[in-house]
């Protein structure tokens, strides 16, 4: 019994890392830089939407599908990302291309329900609902900055969210989750992917909805998400290669996600307009 078990373990150990390596290589390779291999970028109308042409070749996703964007604005923005690369293609600056690729390839094979569940999971530990009890300056800052956003969300969606200083976080009623779950279900899978991306950047569903509903500009939402860090920076000083670097990265990712959602779900934004007044 024991030797056979050992054999199985050994086989697993040998097989699994190899498979994992192949998987990461596939995606990690795309994440670095590459020499620029084209001169002109153009947009053309294809069957599935707007396609991007690099010289005469069609842009493809990492899995080899032809790249298609659902709206002209998104296609222009993606084409601009490719067009403004100099001698090397810096993939880490091309957030919209990355988001489109993820939506087209769906490498993690998640469906709409799984995306909604993943998004709602953040509500239980939402950044703006977690409060500190000391130092007094930060307590006050959190109250003054975060309370209005929570109030806005409670009014806009007619739900109870609340905040807590307990380590377990606030208790979110089931009805609140149902309301958000129904609301998120009205977005298409591209829109949902974008929303989940922003939530995982800001660590907050409330702030993300503020962005999607155009209640908060990107800079403000990012500031609110990093409130404690900003407080510590004011107290202890700013370090450019850590704080500013993080800030700019978070801003660019959040802005890309927001733009992506708005450009992918024009029809669902029209629904909001009727609801708001």
């Amino acid at each position, binding site marked *: 019994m024991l030797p056979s078990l050992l054999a199985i373990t050994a086989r697993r150990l040998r097989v699994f890392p190899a498979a994992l390596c192949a998987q990461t290589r596939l995606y990690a390779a795309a994440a670095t830089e590459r020499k620029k291999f084209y001169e002109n970028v*153009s947009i053309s109308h294809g069957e599935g939407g707007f396609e991007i042409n690099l010289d005469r070749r069609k842009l493809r996703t990492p899995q080899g599908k032809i790249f298609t964007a659902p709206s*002209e604005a998104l296609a222009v923005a993606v084409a601009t990302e490719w067009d*403004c690369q100099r001698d090397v293609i810096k993939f880490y600056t091309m957030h*919209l291309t990355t988001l489109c690729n993820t939506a087209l390839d769906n490498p993690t094979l998640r469906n709409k329900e799984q995306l909604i569940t993943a998004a709602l999971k953040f509500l239980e530990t939402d950044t703006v609902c977690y409060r500190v009890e000391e130092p007094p300056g930060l307590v006050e800052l959190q109250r003054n900055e975060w309370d209005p956003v929570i109030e806005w969300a409670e009014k806009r969606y007619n739900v109870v969210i609340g905040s807590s200083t307990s380590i377990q976080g606030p208790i979110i009623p089931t009805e609140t989750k149902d309301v958000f779950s129904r609301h998120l279900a009205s977005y298409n899978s591209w829109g949902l992917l974008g929303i989940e991306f922003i939530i995982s950047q800001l660590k907050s569903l409330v702030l993300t909805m503020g962005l999607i509903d155009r209640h908060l*500009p990107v800079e403000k939402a990012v500031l609110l998400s990093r409130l404690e860090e900003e407080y510590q920076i004011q107290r202890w000083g700013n370090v450019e290669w850590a704080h*500013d670097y993080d800030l700019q990265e978070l801003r660019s990712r959040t802005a890309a996600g927001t*733009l992506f959602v708005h*450009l992918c779900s024009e029809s669902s934004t029209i629904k909001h307009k009727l609801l708001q007044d």
Partner: protein
Amino acid sequence: MAALGSPLRTFHGLLRELRYMNGVTRYRDTAAYKYIREQFRRNQVTEEKLCRAQQELHFQASTYLCLLHSVRNHDMLHQEYHAKGERSPEQVAGLVGLKLPKQPGGKGWE
């Protein structure tokens, strides 16, 4: 609705980012320039009216401006601090405003 300032300011900001990306002579030929100009023109209103379509466009434009601006800044910081591999002890000391002490007689083991 978020306060965003004047649309013209956002428009000028976008043009500035396009110039950074494409150069002063070439930026007017890009698809992005043509698209942005067209959208701003189409949504211009002369009356002081609450126009939701215009506000939505302005929100989108300022989001795009934020994207271009922060991507440029992030890449600049990346090139400056993170893209060159490991630093020498002298460079690390220089980063925090310090200098390594000089030893006049050599370090002894050279």
